[in-house]
């Protein structure tokens, strides 16, 4: 006698069906798409495991809802934030009011926040608009032109400095993110004896070569793939190999 275990290899559910059949052909008759695996688990009986493909790849042609099934028992677990009473919806207040309040609260932010953030380059936002206006009002009319040009130069210089700072910040950020991805350990690979793994296709050789190309640039050592980072390779060398 052969014991047949029909296994649905679903990721979540795993159900076994047992049937007693005499010949494999019967199984193929009932489950033509079945993958037949014969396991001789014990001396008394042969266990035949059939792994059918799940239906979860197929479209759902009938709309099914678990709650409607007759034997559906709702779980007693309730999420703290998903209580049945929590049924209020928030709405946004009008945008204009929000913008106005923002400009009141934060005098440094320019009044046309919307248009600035919309406009092409936010890096070029000017300094304190009120201070500028004050400065202009105080000047005599004859001097104003010279002063204006002076002011402009000053402004430009400051803007340039600000831009550079921002650039530096951005690059810092980038480096930080990249360093978070992989901490560099340079030159170690040279001293170490090359293992058999380095000769395989997915070995360290590849990551090293890609690193070599990168080291010329300022963004040195950044590898997109975490498993190819030097840190991970070192980790593998240390603990897994």
């Amino acid at each position, binding site marked *: 006698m052969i014991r047949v275990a029909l296994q649905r290899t679903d990721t979540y559910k795993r159900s076994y069906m047992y049937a007693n059949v005499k010949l494999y052909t019967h199984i193929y008759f009932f489950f033509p798409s079945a993958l037949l695996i014969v396991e001789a688990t014990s001396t008394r009986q042969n266990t035949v495991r059939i792994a059918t493909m799940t239906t979860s790849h197929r*479209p*759902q042609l009938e709309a099914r809802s678990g709650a409607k099934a007759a034997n559906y028992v709702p779980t007693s677990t309730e999420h703290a934030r998903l209580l049945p009473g929590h049924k*209020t919806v928030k709405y946004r207040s009008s945008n204009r009011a929000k913008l106005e309040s923002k400009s009141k609260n934060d005098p440094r932010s320019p009044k046309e926040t919307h248009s600035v*953030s919309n406009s092409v380059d*936010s890096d070029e936002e000017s300094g304190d608009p009120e201070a500028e206006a004050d400065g202009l009002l105080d000047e005599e009319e004859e001097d104003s032109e010279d002063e204006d040009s002076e002011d402009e130069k000053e402004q430009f210089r400051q803007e340039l400095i600000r831009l550079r700072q921002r650039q530096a910040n951005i690059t810092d950020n980038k480096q930080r993110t990249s360093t978070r991805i992989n901490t560099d350990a340079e030159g170690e690979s040279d001293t170490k004896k090359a293992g058999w793994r380095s000769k395989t296709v997915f070995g360290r050789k590849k990551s090293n070569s890609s690193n070599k190309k990168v080291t010329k640039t300022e*963004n040195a050592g950044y590898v997109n793939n975490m498993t190819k980072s030097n840190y991970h390779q070192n980790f593998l060398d240390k603990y897994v190999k």
Partner: protein
Amino acid sequence: MNSADDLYRELRWNNQFQVMGTLPRNLQQVIDERTRGSGAGTTVVAYDGRSGEEGQAAVQRYQQLVAQKPQWHAPWRLSKVINGHLGWVRCVAVEPVDNEWFVTGSNDTTLKVWDLASGKLKLTLSGHTMGVRDVAVSERHPYMFSASEDKLVKCWDLEKNTAIRDYYGHLSGVHTVDIHPTLDLIATGGRDAVVKLWDIRTRKAVKTLVGHKAPITKVKCTPVDPQVVSSSTDTTVRLWDIVAGKSMKVLTHHKRAVRSIALHPGEFSLASACTDDVRSWRLPEGSLLTNFQSQSTGVINTLSINDDNVMFAGGDNGVLSFYEYKSGHLYQQTSTQEVRGSLESERGVLTSTFDATGLRLITGEVDKSIKIWRHVEDATEENQPGLPWNPNLSGQRF
């Protein structure tokens, strides 16, 4: 023998070159020489193959096409690359109200909020247990909705920065989510091939729209009928009547899986893309508007349209195509540059969106980076004319 040659020549001419606005240079030279030699001063040589009424009509149509010169748009260039995600960047959405930040969802199960102007990371939201496939920010609520492969749709409160609701009911991974512009509903679609409409407030599935035969790739909501539009890998686009719960219209023009659809922000029309084929549809009735010049683009993952009638199509092989929406004219085609430290094969655009102004394009890519694209600053129609306008009788505005 001679007549066979002539026949071949005529066929070749009719099939290939007749409808072209400008001929290939070598062919044009030959024609120029011939016309000079024969002394016939005809400059219009393109139409001598056809005669009769049919030919006349074709000529007229062609002339109409040439006359509809597409609007010029400045070309786009890469302006910023943002690294930070640890997986493919699968979805991106810009905050629609203030245009101050945008959010990306990734295969590393997180959502990240970035400052739009500076590109700095503002917030990382975790809560999903599998890759995040789509995200939508509401214009009316302070809420954000994310769809994930873990079968859940989550509602995030943007004032508290936490997930406040789960919408549970899809039988498989959820691929797409969109918010209804006027009702408190969200529409989701996923691998189980149904579109579900959820009440935002009570978290109940209000309606399940059955009809697609394969996983759903994109769902879009419009304020008036058809209130839900969905595309699927069964090559169809369906316009749904949500009151009756049936599809009003099925668009079956595409030959391959429709990976993306996009609504035009101004005009009431829709663009849909499958491999090598982008089309737009007039919306209430779903009639064909335009065939875009997309014959050899490859697999198209994403479409987005901005207010100035620029349509962007991002390819699976990293090709960026920019179209003029009205005419279907391909005016720029470039390729993304993969981030340093990633493989060449990781060039691929997975998702894209224009910001609220339409001046920036944000793309999420296979090399785990987010890229921001802008217009070339000092481009004019003279110095950057773009790809030539070669109207084709098959690609037209109906």
